[in-house]
């Protein structure tokens, strides 16, 4: 897995440097943007609010911060479990490279960071004598690839993002891939 990360990171840096060197000198549409969004996991009933900050160092190379607060909607099939809370906070940083068309900006980035998760649920079943509350908290690493499509409209724009985690292979992609849709604002 470490080799995959190194190769992706090097390819992003090399690709952006090569394309910069090849001389595309057009103006950068945005230097710094903030992009709040709402989203969900593709394969689970989670809702998340997030914000992405993107600073374009030059036309093809950007530095990115991605912050997420997500919370899980309780499963209806677990009739006897009362969910007290179930949320996660994720902060990732990364680098990206962008491709441009007339009205879109397509950014491919590699992000890595930390995820904090917390769960508390109470099992309360009339057929069982015990009533038990279980808690689970912890931090874990999180890294993956993000594709961000910006529909360019001057100062404001629409941002659609797909995040695919790489940490746990195909199982992790299925379990934790997310999609987000939101607005973007040009700060600089």
């Amino acid at each position, binding site marked *: 897995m470490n*080799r*995959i990360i190194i*190769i992706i990171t090097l*390819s992003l840096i*090399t690709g952006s440097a*090569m394309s910069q060197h090849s001389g595309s000198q057009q103006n950068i549409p945005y230097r710094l943007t903030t992009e709040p969004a709402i989203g969900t996991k593709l394969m689970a009933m989670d809702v998340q609010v997030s914000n992405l900050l993107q600073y374009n160092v030059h036309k093809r190379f950007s530095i990115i911060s991605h912050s997420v607060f997500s919370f*899980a909607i*309780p*499963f209806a*099939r*677990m*009739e*006897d*479990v009362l*969910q007290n809370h*179930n949320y*996660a906070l994720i902060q990732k940083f990364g680098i990206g490279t962008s491709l441009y068309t007339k009205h879109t900006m397509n950014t491919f980035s590699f992000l890595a960071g930390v*995820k904090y*998760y917390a*769960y508390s*649920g*109470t*099992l309360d*079943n009339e*057929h*069982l*004598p*015990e009533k*038990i*509350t*279980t808690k*689970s908290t*912890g*931090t*874990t*690493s999180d890294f993956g690839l993000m594709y961000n499509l910006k529909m360019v409209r001057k100062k404001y724009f629409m941002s659609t993002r797909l995040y695919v985690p790489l940490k*746990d292979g195909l*199982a*992790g992609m*299925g*379990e*934790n891939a997310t999609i987000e849709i939101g607005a973007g604002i040009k700060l600089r």
Partner: protein
Amino acid sequence: MKYFIFLSALVTLFSCKKESIAQNPALNKNFRIVSAEKGKTYQISIFLPEGYPSSTDYYPTIYVLDADQNQELVADQCKKISTCLNTQNVIVVGIGYGDNRNIDYTPTKTTYGDGGSVAFLNFIKKELIPRIQQDFRADTLRKNRVIIGHSFGGLFGAFAFTKHNEVFGNYLLLSPSLFYDNSVILQYEQESRPSIKDKRQLVFIGAGATEGALLPANDLLYQRLVKFYLNTASTFNIVGGRGHNTSRNTDIENAISFYFKNR
């Protein structure tokens, strides 16, 4: 040229594959068995221990549910850990799908399953185990039979533990869906407790830390095991930062390790 090197590196990276126990045909046997109990045909895959052909020893057996997904990793881990601990390996019996897992692995009929566990367990007990003991040098003692399953497979393992405790002596339950049907397995456990609590047995319960509402019922089963089952070796293993599917492989490794160290 740069892109060619980059692509070559990628191809090399993804073409590296660890040698698996399944690649040795002398130790891998397969057969189909038509179940009189179920009226279905099951594909059974056997991974024998490395020393099996040259020895006359009898071996413990691990019965693997959802064999298509889990059996190779289970067999690889058994080989690795038994070698590491310098102890006898096991025969790994993979039970492929003969019927839908939502039928075979669920104890009662609900929206999510058809409640075929009784018939499936009878098939294992009355047809599969006798066949394995007839065709291979499989130890016939309860304490030397193990069942391992994930999700609904773990639910079925817990069903076997509570309702047909005489079949297996070791239960490796990976993210078992104990919430199923209003936690019916925990109700079964209460009913069966007087007759099974004093038996010597081993129960591994595993789950991912981010599995949320699946955790409380598993936590309660573990607490009951600790409180009431004084001759049972048990553990509740939480895999940090992982969910239902992403915890599975780590859980398999931990469960196999727990079995070999505590059997």
